């Protein structure tokens, strides 16, 4: 919506609405996860779905991620369209073989004789002192390994459209929702993610980044929570006459290189902001794509991410390592002539 008209919804509501619609339309869609039935998802990812669809289609599962996510792979190969939830992305290590050696590779290893139409939903992100085993985004970890489409919505509007596309997609999609954006009662979201959301279904194709704010002086490439932190920084800098363009990647695989390049050609300055670990990840990828495609476009570049340490617990420590809008502001200023 180009303005705030229409029904406002939280990100979780929008996401759940897409799931419900697809489930109504297609009996082959079902949802498996821990605490997704009676609880409605620890982060509201299935809120209200049990009432409409019952325990058969909104399935609580044993705390056996390898077994039930692998079962989703098997059901998907049999032609169903399961959605499996990994409660926190930080738990990927207990089921990664199913995710990357089976779900992600079976299509290729079979010469596309077989496909795996499933969605893995998973909660990501920090900012609430959940420490090293419950606060990561792992964006780079998933985007690095081929065979998975990787989706990271930042608004309710995007969350719904991307979820419709994810469920309809014939390939495995990893759908990473940031806890801080969901609009959960006990974890207040910033203002941005709650947007106008049409009631009818719509899709947002993968690989189309979204320019969340247009600007002429510097390009900020980011995703998830940090879209909103970047917009905050941009609003502050506008007062100082620095005109910031904020690109929300929305999907990491596929990556919308074209939109990034176009923006950088305009601004000549690039700040990449990521909530994942700094090295061997997203910031390096975006910068390299630009340098490779347009060796002379960049006059200044900054990368901002978790400084290669696990996520600490205490607030001053966590605040130190997760970039906030002040950090983004500083990074942007550094790129200015």
């Amino acid at each position, binding site marked *: 919506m180009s303005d705030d008209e229409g029904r406002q919804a939280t990100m979780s509501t929008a996401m759940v609405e897409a799931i419900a619609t697809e489930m109504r339309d297609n009996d082959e869609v079902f949802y498996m996860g821990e605490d997704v039935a009676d609880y409605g998802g620890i982060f509201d990812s299935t809120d209200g779905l049990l009432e409409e669809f019952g325990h058969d289609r909104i399935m609580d599962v044993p705390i056996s991620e390898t077994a039930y996510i692998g079962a989703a792979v098997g059901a998907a190969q049999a032609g169903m369209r399961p959605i499996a939830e990994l409660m926190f992305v930080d738990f990927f290590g207990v089921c990664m073989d199913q995710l990357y050696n089976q779900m992600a590779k079976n299509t290729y290893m079979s010469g596309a004789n077989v496909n795996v139409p499933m969605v893995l939903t998973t909660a990501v992100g920090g900012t609430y002192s959940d420490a090293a085993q419950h606060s990561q985004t792992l964006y780079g970890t998933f985007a690095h390994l081929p065979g998975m489409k990787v989706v990271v919505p930042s608004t309710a*509007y995007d969350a719904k459209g991307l979820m419709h596309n994810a469920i309809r997609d014939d390939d495995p999609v990893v759908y990473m929702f940031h806890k801080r954006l969901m609009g959960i009662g006990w974890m207040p979201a910033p203002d941005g993610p709650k947007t106008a959301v049409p009631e009818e279904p719509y899709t947002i194709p993968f690989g189309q980044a979204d320019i969340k704010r247009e600007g002429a002086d510097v390009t900020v490439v980011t995703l998830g929570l940090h879209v909103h932190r970047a917009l905050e920084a941009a609003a502050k800098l506008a007062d100082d006459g620095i005109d910031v363009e904020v690109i929300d990647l929305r999907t990491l695989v596929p990556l919308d290189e074209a939109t990034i390049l176009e923006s950088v050609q305009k601004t000549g300055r690039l700040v990449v902001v990521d909530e994942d670990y700094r090295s061997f990840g997203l910031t390096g990828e975006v910068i390299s794509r630009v340098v490779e495609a347009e060796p002379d476009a960049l006059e200044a570049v900054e990368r901002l991410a978790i400084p290669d340490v696990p996520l600490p617990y205490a607030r001053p420590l966590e605040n130190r390592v997760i970039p906030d809008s002040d950090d983004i502001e500083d990074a942007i200023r550094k790129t200015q002539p």
Partner: protein
Amino acid sequence: MGTVTTTQLRSMYEDMVTARYYEERLQEEYMEGKTPGFDISAGPIPGELHLAAGHEAAAAGVCAHLTDEDTVTAPHRPHHIAIAKGVDLKRMTAEIFGRETGLSAGKGGHMHLFDPDVNFACSGIIAQGCPPAVGAALAAMKRNESSVAVAYLGEGAISQGAFLESLNLASLHDLPVIFVVEDNDWAISMPKGRISVPQDGSKRAAGFDMPGVRIDHDDATAVYEAAAEAVGRARDGNGPTLMSVQVHRRMGHFMGDPETYRPEADQQRHQERDSIERLAADLEAAGVDEDERETIREDAHARVDDAIEWAKDQPEPEPDAALEDVFSNPPSGVTDEDPTPEFAGNGGADR
């Protein structure tokens, strides 16, 4: 011999002699170019090769009860199971030779055979075929279909989380799935007593409220009968079964395995126990005489020779084909017209 009919005995025999001859022929082909100096990158068959001579009874005896609608997942040693499940022999062979017309267009190789026509798949990671088999069974249950799923694994895999978690999930929902442990005593160089307690994989069932059955001699008829019960139980909605079948490893773990860790007496013993001869005796008793068996064998051998011949004639894939098939769909996930409603086109843009 209970329930098994002569037709079924004959059909198992056919699968088993096909599989045995297949492995012997692949061994020949594989070693060509790798003799005298074994170089894994030389010769007509690329990569690793795990052959299953001595395992045939476990495949034939179980798959005899399955239709194309039933799902089977196999581990790194899959050929005999694929054959018993009815996987297209020519395209499977072409895949093993790395050819364009192979089941996976040359992308998968011998540990990654997928034939959706008969719902066969495999994976080279220990026990990771179990969860997808449970998933196929779950799909059958959800769709109210009577198909079942079978997950094969080695006795070395009975201590892997993926298998153990699958037992609980399958038992919890009484899913129509059968786990078949092919117990050949060895996990590469590790004798089963060195790595698992108890050694009999079927005993794992006890901790998961499901029946476990051990067939401790690789007798296809005995496997057939145990599987009749297990598959029947699954089809009737009465839940999973864990079977452990004693088989034999007549060859090295993979081709080129020097087996220096293996006592000669053990190798000897595994050669002597021949499930195929054993089944021949059952056939004899059922009135299928050596002449008839000879015909079955000859047909089987011809089919195998044909498949190998055909496969070797197939073209290799074009190098650039390597860049295709990561996704079955365009990366955008959009195949048809963009169903985005009009006003949503600019929707995200300005928040």
